[in-house]
């Protein structure tokens, strides 16, 4: 029997009080023609203990990325979340609250989110942050929509945005779907031979509504040209930067080199990769975009006695007030995960952030050095530096290499042709994070060498 229904067995008393005699009477308003004529064809109810047995069996059949050497990342990173983060965020008062529509009894969450906004603002060096988007891709897509609303009137290229070439499908397809409403035309911004934005051809973007770039780029290359981009595209075009969040412990904040809107995947701060969700998108911007931005925002104010207080603000942008004229349809967001992110950021502090970024940078460099020492393996872009991840050209199919190493117990990365239109099947995307060890790198390098000698060389001869 189901055990979370306090009124089981008391139905009759309650019905009698209403002058009714059966539960069926409560559903008598459903027209006969649309009523179910048979019970749900589902299994019998389970107790908590039985559910745990099944959960253990099913989830136990999965392979956790941290149970073996792992080099799969590409926007979602193996990390370690300090125990205190989950312990605090899953306190029932946070976990089981709804959106703080009644600020008088929601000051805790509101203040925590306002603090989160402050830490994000400091991280990216822009004055305004919301309390989260669904993920980095929807944040990027909404940023472009926001920029079209702000700039289209003065734009010389109406309803046009530019995004860099080689965006993975999980980014580009989301941007395309979200562009339907404004019928935005998405054009491509070219790279130079180093995988950095080609500043000469970027002049073509002048006068459009927005330009979207990533730092580092999707192959992991740190783009040294971006600081000059805002000058080229001009004041009336939004520079939207998708940034690797932890890299900002060592890389300059985009707000300090011309970004108007910064979006990021917040996941490394606060939560494990958790099969892709729930995670959270960071969204920050200058004041110019504030009234057209999506999502919830917390502001500081006072109560009726002059005491400091917090509340949701600028709700007139949102769907529950503005309906079809809202800046976005977003309602439920990723608040709890943003709270986890905020707690993690606070626990790291500025020095901890820098240390975390340096751990990632070091792991990337050590892994790259190991892999590039293998004969026949080359960097796709040879002239740039990388953070967190890099892409190599293998002497054979990346999928073949992944399968081979998988059998050795190594998750070697990502075959880019699986997620990126036009990517060569020899391109292997390798991610190293703060969790990567020297032993992991040795396993990867050993595995790749073995694959080359046993498979590629064998086929070649």
């Amino acid at each position, binding site marked *: 029997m189901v055990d979370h229904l306090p009124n089981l067995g008391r139905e009759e008393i309650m019905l009698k009080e*209403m002058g009714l005699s059966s539960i069926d009477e409560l559903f008598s308003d459903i027209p006969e023609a649309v009523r179910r004529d048979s019970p749900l064809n589902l299994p019998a109810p389970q107790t908590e203990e039985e559910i745990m047995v099944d959960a253990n069996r099913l989830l136990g059949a999965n392979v956790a990325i941290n149970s073996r050497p792992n080099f*799969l990342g590409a926007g979602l990173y193996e990390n370690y979340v300090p125990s205190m983060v989950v312990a605090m965020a899953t306190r029932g008062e946070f976990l089981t609250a709804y959106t703080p*529509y009644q600020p*008088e009894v929601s000051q805790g969450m509101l203040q925590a989110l306002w603090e989160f906004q402050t830490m994000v603002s400091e991280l990216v060096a822009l004055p305004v942050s919301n309390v989260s988007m669904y993920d980095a891709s929807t944040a990027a897509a909404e940023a472009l929509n926001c920029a079209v609303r702000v700039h289209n009137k003065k734009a010389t290229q109406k309803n046009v945005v530019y995004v860099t070439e080689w965006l993975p499908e999980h980014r580009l397809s989301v941007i395309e779907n979200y562009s339907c409403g404004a019928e935005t035309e998405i054009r491509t911004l070219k790279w130079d031979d180093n995988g950095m934005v080609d500043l000469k051809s970027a002049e073509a973007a002048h006068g459009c509504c927005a330009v979207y770039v990533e730092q580092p780029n999707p192959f992991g290359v740190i783009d040294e040209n971006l600081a000059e981009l805002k000058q080229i595209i001009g004041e009336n075009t939004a520079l939207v930067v998708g940034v690797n969040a932890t890299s900002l412990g060592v890389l300059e904040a985009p707000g300090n080199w011309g970004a108007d809107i910064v979006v990021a995947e917040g996941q490394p701060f606060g939560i494990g990769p958790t099969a892709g969700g*729930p995670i959270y998108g960071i969204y920050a911007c200058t004041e110019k975009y504030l009234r057209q931005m999506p999502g919830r925002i917390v502001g500081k104010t006072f109560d009726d006695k002059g005491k400091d207080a917090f509340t949701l603000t600028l709700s007139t942008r949102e769907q529950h*007030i503005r309906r079809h004229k809202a800046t976005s349809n977003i309602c*439920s967001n990723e608040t709890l995960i943003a709270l986890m992110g905020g707690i993690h950021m606070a626990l790291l502090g500025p020095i901890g952030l820098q240390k975390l970024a340096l751990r990632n940078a070091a792991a990337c460099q050590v892994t790259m050095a190991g892999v590039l020492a293998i004969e026949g393996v080359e960097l796709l872009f040879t002239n740039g530096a990388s953070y967190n991840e890099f892409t190599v050209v293998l002497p054979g199919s990346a999928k073949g290499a992944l399968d081979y190493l998988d059998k050795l117990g190594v998750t070697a990365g990502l075959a880019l042709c699986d997620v990126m239109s036009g990517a060569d099947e020899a391109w292997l995307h390798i991610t190293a994070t703060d969790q990567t060890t020297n032993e992991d790198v040795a396993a990867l390098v050993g595995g790749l060498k073995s694959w080359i000698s046993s498979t590629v060389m064998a086929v070649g001869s």
Partner: protein
Amino acid sequence: MSDLFAFDGAPEAGYAQPSPLLSDEEAIAGIPESIRRKSLPRWPRASEPELVRHYTWLSRRNFGIDTGFYPLGSCTMKHNPRVNEKIVQMAGMNDLHPLAPASHLQGLMAIFYEMQEMLAHCAGMDSVTLQPVAGAQGEFAAIRCIQEYHRSNGEGSRDKVIVPDSAHGTNPASAAMCGYQIIEIPSNENGRLDLGALRAVVGDDTAAMMVTNPSTLGIFEPEIAEATEIVHNAGGQMYYDGANFNAILGKTSPGLMGFDAVHYNLHKTFSQPHGGGGPGSGPIGVKSHLAQFLPKPLVVREEDEHGLDGWTYSWEDPVNSIGKVQQWHGNSGAVVRSWAFYRRYGRDLEKMSEHAVLNANYLRHRILNPSEELASKISAMPIDGAPARVVKHEFTLSMSPVKDATGVSGKDVAKRLLDYGYMAPTLYFPMIVPECLMVEPTETESKEVLDKFAEDFLTILTEDPELVKTAPHTTDVGRVDEVWAARNLVLRHSLGE
């Protein structure tokens, strides 16, 4: 007040990390000098014990279902089973990568498959995707599917989506994000769908109609089958907003009502915690003619004696998929929590809806029928937001008579309820009910809680109007000045500047 940014301890007091694989000097040398960060963000410098106290202090200034009764209409604030939280913290969930080989994700995919099948069955749909991460995103994804369906039939000129005036704001917002024009039709004098108004606007430019049933008034639409017929005859598609699915599970289904597409709110019906605003999960179900357009990928399975429980699971892209609406495979954690919830009920999910409806009707009865003693002290009673013999999982009250008699508004009563230790009902929605309070108790509240709430609610109506108008009085802060917040926009800490 505990101020996070007042923590300014020594750098060594913060979270300790293992040594990096290279010295800091070596690591930073690999970052081009031109783009190195010059000054670090001014985050707090605090130790774990200090932060545990800060966040515990904050949590105690926040109200959740765990704190008390949360009758927030349309939000289905039911109990969140704790075993669900335990399950998602397991390594086989928390440390999975969505792009890992399918062979690494078989257990997760088995749960996905079971959820796809269960949700399709419960809603009378043919195919379900778990991709959308919120109800609003489910709406957007499904309307995009409908858009592509019309285009594939050479009917891309259908450019209008019809919504009733009682609809959630996300409905028109989601359809507008697909590029549709919104036609809002008025409800009839009883708050029901007005078929005359529908016939007047439906036509060969109709792409879809979006309906919530039971409606946001908590009332089952008696003419829903006729409405779907009108829209279908005009070539339009019917979209079911599943926000109120908690009311009808096992009793009827969107499929039986004639709908073509539906979204589910796993954070309402299936107990994913709301987390102060999210995460949610908004899977969508469709009839077979729309299945080829669903966002990708779905989970499929084949019999395999070496597989998990005899099956091997794989990802499959619908042939004419609209592509992706979010980054990975949906809010997997929410799906897994909801799976654990559903397993607790199994075929008895019907009981969940029965008790949700029982509790709503009982509470409505208790509020609208006060004891003689209380009634004698109340100068004006609220009235039903819309006349109904029975309601479903929620009901609306118009506080207009109270406001007319005493000057006490719906908002005042809502704020006063906070003093009594309750979350306030949904306020001023749906907009078609003046001075509206929308009350949804859910199935996980006991009769005693409902009795006490009704008594306290009625007691407020006997109180000095000034006391109610200036409420709340016992909360952490008094009535918050939202106008000042919107005018002055203090959106971050000044950090002493």
